[in-house]
């Protein structure tokens, strides 16, 4: 059986099913219980599994992350929500100093099967701090996994994989496309492996790497220039760390060109890492400068300015053409 679901619904279904399958899974965070989360990703979970396993927490991100460490050590699989990725920062110390390190620190004695879910990214005309895309910050920390789905199908499969992962996973959800489209999503558990990218479209003129909400914008961009005779290979990275390097390295060996598109700030972002890997592994194949099209190195603007920030399909299209015509 399959249903047609959007991303929020797919996430909700993944949580439902994993809580059903595994009674050690617990869900908590700010407003996730009674009301089912500000984006309704956890809706009905409390009704179904009770207040013991699905509950509202006090307003304190460090404690949400920090208590999850204790729970994971003590046999549970906490899946906690941070209300927006811009509010993960109070939990930064717990994430970097403990969550990323407990397995290594204890030489494998204590591992942390836990997930931190949070909606990330801009484009929803929101207040300050509600549009952040700082996945690269966490990807730089040894010991973490950072996963970003771009479709309902992937969201469910990746979240299930994250919950079952014996190690901590940061699960960043592209809120701009939470409800943007629906897709057939099979009922019942399935996993999409963490650390594997997906080739969305094969081509041999240019490799385009992207993830999250930008996937659709890249697809729109490619559509805009479909008469230009360019055959791009589009890769949805799906996991930011550890990264599926082969996916784009092999692709670049074929295309000779690479464009990374992300909405996070440009400098020190994920694009830089991808480009460096390409330099290390496919230098001799490069026919044009590996290119980044990203958010600016500025704070994400309030709504009256936000349309400038996220690379538009038009800008992406122009950049694809520029790189191919280089």
């Amino acid at each position, binding site marked *: 059986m399959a249903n047609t679901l959007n991303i929020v619904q797919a996430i909700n279904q993944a949580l439902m099913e994993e809580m059903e399958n595994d009674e050690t899974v617990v869900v908590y965070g700010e*407003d996730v219980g009674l*009301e089912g989360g500000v984006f309704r990703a956890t809706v009905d979970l409390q009704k179904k599994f009770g207040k013991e396993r699905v509950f509202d927490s006090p*307003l304190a991100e460090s404690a949400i992350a920090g208590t999850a460490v204790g729970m994971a050590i003590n046999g549970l699989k906490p899946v906690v929500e941070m209300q927006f990725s811009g*509010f993960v920062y109070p939990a930064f110390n717990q994430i970097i100093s403990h969550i990323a390190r407990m397995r290594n620190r204890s030489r494998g004695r204590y591992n942390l099967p836990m997930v931190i879910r949070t909606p990330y990214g801009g484009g929803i005309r929101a207040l300050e701090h509600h549009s952040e895309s700082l996945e690269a910050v966490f990807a730089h920390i040894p010991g973490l996994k950072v996963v970003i789905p771009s479709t309902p199908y992937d969201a469910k499969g990746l979240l299930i994989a994250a919950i079952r992962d014996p190690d901590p996973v940061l699960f960043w959800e592209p809120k701009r496309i939470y409800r943007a489209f629906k897709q057939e999503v099979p009922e019942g558990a399935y996993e999409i492996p963490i650390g594997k990218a997906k080739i969305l479209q094969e081509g041999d003129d240019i490799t385009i790497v992207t993830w999250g909400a930008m996937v659709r914008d890249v697809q729109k961009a490619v559509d805009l220039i479909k008469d230009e005779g360019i055959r791009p290979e589009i890769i949805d990275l799906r996991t930011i760390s550890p990264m599926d390097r082969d996916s784009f390295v092999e692709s670049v060996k074929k295309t000779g060109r690479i464009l990374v598109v992300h909405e996070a700030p440009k400098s020190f972002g994920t694009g830089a890492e991808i480009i460096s890997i390409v330099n290390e592994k496919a230098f001799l194949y490069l026919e044009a400068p590996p290119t980044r099209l990203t958010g*600016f190195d500025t704070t994400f603007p309030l709504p*009256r*300015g936000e349309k400038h920030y996220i690379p538009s399909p038009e800008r992406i299209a122009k950049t694809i053409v520029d790189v191919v015509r280089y």
Partner: protein
Amino acid sequence: MRLEDYNPLEDRSFSILDPDGEIINEKDMPDFTDEELLYLYKTMLYTRIIDEKALSYQRQGRMLTYAPNTGQEAAQVGSAYAMKEEDWLVPAFRELGAWLVKGVPLKNIYLYWYGNEWGSYMPEGVRVLPISIPIASQLQHAAGIGMANNIKGEKSVAVGYVGDGGTSEGDFHEALNFAAVFKAPVVFFIQNNQYAISTPRSIQTMSKNLALKAVAYNMPGILVDGNDLFAVYVATKEAIERARNGEGPSLIEAYTYRLGAHTTSDDPTKYREDEEVEKWKNKDPILRFKKYLKKKGILTDEWEEKTIEELEKEVMETFESIENKSDTEIDDIFKYHYETMPPHLEEQLNEYKAFLEGGK
């Protein structure tokens, strides 16, 4: 009232004006002139009108996310009225009445919620910090402002606002602790409106009230009826003067209620009962103030009608003055990160402008 004599562990609320507009505590009643009373009433009305208009603009799709204040006017206006011009207001994001008293132009406020950073550009002489979204983090700024006053030998006071939910954050603890240790002239003002989005106050903490958290820092703490402007004013005034006199920080819990939604994205019927809301409507801070003024013979229907009409006109004109005219300049996105724009930002700005000019 003496703040030090009040024991928040006893869990009694300090109040002066009851929901029927009666003064139940003559002894502590502040000595306002009729003019002042009308100003305070007018400001609460202004606050409510701004709220109502914003909500209706929002419903019409002319405004973005907005955080309403209805029900909390006395807590906001009363506390800010206790501040002097040289005092610093350090807000969270739901302090409309306080901003107005402190001289923040409505234009700024609407501009902010309309989605433009210029809303946070305070006029010269208005010692108000921008809205701070990360819960409780702003209290540390209040503590720092107070510490700086001590170092500089200045007599101004910082008033830091936070919600009931905000008391659970680590920053709440650290800010109060720093302020106490350094005897900083700071007043921490909790608007306990019973909810943090959908999460009721009972889930935030087991402590009987929030004011008693002051005990952990050895500072005075007081629980006041937050819908009683007089009580709020008196307690804040005393806390501020105490701070100004070098006696250190205090904590005030204004017990109030958010009659509306958390923000325009929120649907409060999901998490609370109508009866609860109705109960609190009877405690409306504006209503009881009006009853008091009426009984005192200070307020006339004509004055009120005229005032509301004027305020509504002003609010509408202000909104219209920014509507559709407040798109962010591209340069503004880049210009204010550093005093001097570094080359990489300049390059990004120029590239983007070139793209826009290049058509498409």
